[in-house]
């Protein structure tokens, strides 16, 4: 009588175990890699109604962020500029350019320009721009190199872990207040740490980790 079970059958439990382990490891790795805002948010770059470029306006023309986002150092909300701000210059510069037609239309009609929002925290999170930028935290820390972006891209995950990493240890991200809006500013890491520690001490920075700070 031939063998009912071939020889390799002896290794079946081992093989099944190894296979399960391997698939389990792959599924875990996939979940770790993909099921996080580091994957789902970072890189989001919607098509905007006007091909407005921060690279042209900030890098080339040297405009300050506050020229357009004028509430960023006064309120929790960094406003998107109204079309009248663009028309300060574009009533003369590129005055009949087709790319700027939506801006001119809304300037005349008073209808808002349909910009697509990119960074968007959940509604149960309380965030505040003014507290950060007035305490030496630059736009780069949370938005990346906006000054080099032709179209704005979601650069940082903006998860709770991201906020807390800095709130636990803000020193590496504190810079002199006059450099907050200068996204090109860099510092040698060793000096930066000493300087950040000094600022945190002098300004009595207490970036809270209490849940009530961000959820109220």
């Amino acid at each position, binding site marked *: 009588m031939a063998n009912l079970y071939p020889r390799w059958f002896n290794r079946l439990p081992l*093989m099944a175990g190894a*296979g399960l382990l*391997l*698939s389990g490891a*792959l599924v875990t790795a*996939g979940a770790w*890699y*993909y099921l996080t*805002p*580091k*994957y*789902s*948010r*970072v*890189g*989001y*770059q*919607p*098509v905007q109604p006007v091909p407005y470029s921060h690279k042209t306006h900030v890098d080339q*023309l*040297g*405009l*300050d962020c*506050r*020229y357009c986002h*004028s509430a960023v150092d006064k309120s929790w*909300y960094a*406003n*998107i500029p*109204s079309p*009248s*701000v663009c*028309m*300060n*210059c574009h*009533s*003369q*510069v*590129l*005055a009949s350019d087709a790319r700027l037609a939506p801006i001119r239309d809304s300037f005349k009609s008073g209808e*808002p320009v349909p910009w697509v*929002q990119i960074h968007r925290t*959940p*509604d*149960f999170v309380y965030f505040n721009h003014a507290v950060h930028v007035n305490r030496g935290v630059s736009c780069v820390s949370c938005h990346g190199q906006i000054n080099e972006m032709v179209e704005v*891209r*979601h650069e940082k995950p903006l998860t709770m872990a991201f906020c807390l990493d800095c709130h636990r240890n803000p020193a590496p991200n504190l810079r002199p207040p006059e450099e907050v809006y200068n996204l090109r500013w860099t510092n040698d890491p060793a000096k930066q740490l000493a300087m950040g520690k000094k600022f945190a001490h002098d300004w009595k920075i207490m970036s809270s980790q209490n849940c009530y700070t961000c959820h109220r």
Partner: protein
Amino acid sequence: MRYFLITLLLITAAVVSVAGVRGALSRKPPLEVFPDMKRQPKLRPQKPSAFFADQRDSRLPVAGTVPVDALLSDSPAATGFVPGTTNYAAISPYPMTAEWLERGHQRFTIYCSPCHSAAGDGNGIITKYGLLKAGNFHDPRILKMPDGQLFNTITLGKNQMPSYAAQIPIPDRWAIIAYVRALERTRLGDLNDVPVENRAALR
């Protein structure tokens, strides 16, 4: 076993090729699995809202409303005029201090220097791209203007000069004027402004 490994490899390759890597460009908004608490029916600035007929949740003030922190509407600080007249206030109603001037310098750099240049001579960077020459603050005509008239220009604009009332709050406008006055002084100085003991060094 071999088939199993090959299938696993194929599935992995398929997932990676469809899902891509972290940080890759995406034109579609991030997926939100249980959005019920994340997107509450509350109002946030500059967002659309179905509640209002014009779909805007940032409401325009009703005609005639005055913000609680507004200055008295006929004080020189709010209008740039001597109350009850059409004469421009000669000097700023705010006291001049070092911090005030520093504030003015900062705001001037943000809002005025793109067109008027950091030196205030009207040759800012935008003039290289098609803007007419902006006003030169060292021009005798502007030198003689009362502070109130400068305030009026910032608030309402003049010819090609746009209004900055929406971008610059009233106190900041006066701080900018203080700085413009200081800037004008830089080209009016003569030897008498230099302390006596330093004069020799300039000769």
